[in-house]
């Protein structure tokens, strides 16, 4: 029997917490570091760096992920009277935070979200940019709390100078980061119970799904595609952790053994043909219009087991790249695909 969270008899959440991606998770793994604007590491531009930075869920690799209740200490400039639930006008320029805010019933206080925040449907999408956040544009919505996943310039400093509370929650490196971020959003919005319920619900659903994975002698292998030039993830990433719950082995781990590519290498096509993974998951169905059909048409790919057996799985790019509440849906698709293989 495959134990939930791969942690044997131990308590699930703490078992997950121990999975650090080779020290790449800046300040996120412990989840309790505060998130003042000065804390984040920044990076230089350049196409190569950008190309890596924008890959899939690693949108903001260099920004420290913030989690834990202490994150609310970033509410500088908020009158003490506002505690514990003072925020009535929340702006989210993080797709993940948007999903989390609505999932903890704080959605009615969200007045604006960025242009990429397309879920849930009732989220008040605006043309605010999450890639190049503009302080003035954000202030135009008169927020008292701004949630970001990424601070490329001095957006956080600018907002705080204007007396607006900010919460910077970068990319999650582990499932524990996701739960910590939800908890932090619960604390800062005052919806503590809703956040706790969401986390508990997600954890039990994830555990149930993991427990439902059929036993097999040889673990199945998978390849998770981020774009049609074969950028992929290794098992040291957040996404890799989700696949591990379904008992899958990553076929691309050799492409980034030391984490030099942050777990997001560009895989050699011939290596993939040789590795011949049992399952291919496409997280580039929207960005790059890839389907099981286009994959089968690629040169040489007709020899792949996953292509001949029809185990090329088309994922929703968004669900497969956001570390929010819908990771449960992602794991469900993965587990269903795994269990469909006899």
């Amino acid at each position, binding site marked *: 029997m495959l134990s939930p969270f791969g942690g044997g008899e131990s308590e699930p959440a703490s078992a997950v917490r121990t999975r650090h991606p080779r020290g790449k998770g800046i300040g996120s793994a412990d989840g309790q570091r505060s998130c003042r604007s000065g804390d984040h590491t920044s990076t230089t531009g350049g196409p190569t760096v950008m190309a890596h930075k924008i890959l899939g869920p690693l949108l903001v690799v260099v920004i420290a992920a913030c989690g834990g209740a202490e994150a609310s200490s970033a509410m500088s400039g908020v009158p003490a009277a506002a505690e514990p639930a003072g925020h009535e006008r929340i702006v989210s320029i993080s797709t993940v935070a948007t999903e989390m805010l609505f999932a903890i019933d704080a959605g009615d206080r969200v007045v604006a979200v960025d242009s990429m925040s397309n879920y849930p449907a009732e989220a008040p999408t605006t043309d605010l940019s999450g890639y190049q956040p503009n302080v003035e544009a954000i202030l135009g919505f008169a927020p008292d709390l701004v949630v970001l996943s990424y601070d490329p310039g001095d957006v956080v400093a600018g907002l705080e100078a204007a007396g607006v509370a900010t919460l910077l929650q970068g990319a999650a490196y582990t499932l524990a980061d996701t739960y910590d971020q939800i908890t932090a959003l619960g604390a800062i919005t005052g919806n503590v119970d809703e956040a706790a319920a969401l986390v508990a619900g997600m954890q039990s659903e994830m555990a149930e799904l993991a427990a439902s994975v059929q036993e097999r002698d040889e673990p199945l292998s998978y390849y998770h595609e981020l774009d049609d030039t074969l950028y992929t993830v290794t098992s040291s990433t957040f996404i890799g952790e989700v696949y591990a719950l379904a008992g899958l082995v990553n076929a691309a781990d050799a*492409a980034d053994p030391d984490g030099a590519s942050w777990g997001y290498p560009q895989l050699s096509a011939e290596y993939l043909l040789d590795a011949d993974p049992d399952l291919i998951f496409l997280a580039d169905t929207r*960005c790059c219009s890839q389907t099981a059909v286009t994959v089968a048409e690629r040169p040489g790919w007709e020899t792949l087991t996953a292509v001949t057996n029809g185990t090329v799985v088309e994922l929703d790019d968004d669900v497969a790249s956001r570390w929010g509440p819908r990771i449960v849906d992602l794991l469900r698709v993965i587990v269903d695909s795994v269990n469909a293989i006899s």
Partner: protein
Amino acid sequence: MTSEAGRLNPDGGGRSLLGIRWLLAGVGAVLVSAVIGVATGPVAIPLGQVIRELLDRLPLLEVDSSLSAADRAIVWDLRAPRVVLGLLVGALLAGSGAAYQGVFRNPLADPYLLGIAAGAGLGATIAIVAELRDVLGVDPVPLVAFAGALMAVTAAGTLSVRRGRVGSPTTLILAGVAVANFFTAIQTFVQQQNSETLQQVFAWILGRLSTAGWAEVRLLLPYAAVCVVGLVLAVGPLDVLAVGDEEASTLGLRPRAARRAILAVASLGAAAAVAVSGLIGFVGLVVPHAVRLVAGASHRRVIPLSLLFGGAFLALADVVARTVQAPAELPIGVITAFVGAPFFLVILRRQMAS
């Protein structure tokens, strides 16, 4: 300076023994790089079997390579087209670079000088952002990139002509710089408006040789043929142009018309190369200089040798790109610049010394 020698003796012994020796060396380099290219990769396949597999692909020849279906696909569907594409793209970039340097009599000229890179970048970005679907089974991105590259070069060429008066080479270069910046501005704007496609745009810019197949080869081949034939035919006029416009006129050449025709051919090849491979730097700059340094400045040698050694260089650079971090890929532009930049500096310092 080597180019002086070329000017004094433009007919620098094209058919001499030395010239033929260099030509054979070039052909040898192409063959060696091709063999290394199909035999090397993250997956180990014995050379003997690779060669038997390739022989099996020849018409009327039946050879059992005893390779698995996946290995056969690796050799024939992945490595072989990559090698051919590397040879073609490298040849086109180096050949057109040599032609540009000859036409402008400027050692810093490269195939991207007149806005080809910016035009192709804009075209690719638009195709990606507009989510253009496959047209007749062909990926639309290289087609639109090709159109963008030609548009940029044509704009630069047209803008440097006024009331039928053709401007000087410097006018053309400046027009090219202006057009390139203009196209880059539009490209950046389109990209920022559609930030969700950033990843794809950068993947294109960093080069798509890693996922290229025979479809890209078929796309490039007709343009490569026109460009290679055109460049080889241009060696005479290029040598005459090297002497100077007045002398060229007395020799019966219309320098401005000749210059335009050569640039058109070179630009066509460079644009087609960029469209299928993305932006690969330094090949068009470094290879012709290296050739000039070792084999002399006559275009009778520089053009054919640039085509041959340029192809071999890029095919080998691609081998490095797919093996140095195997099984991860490294963008090929990183390799060409990493090797090309120091090499270029060495040449530069040698020229300063002499």
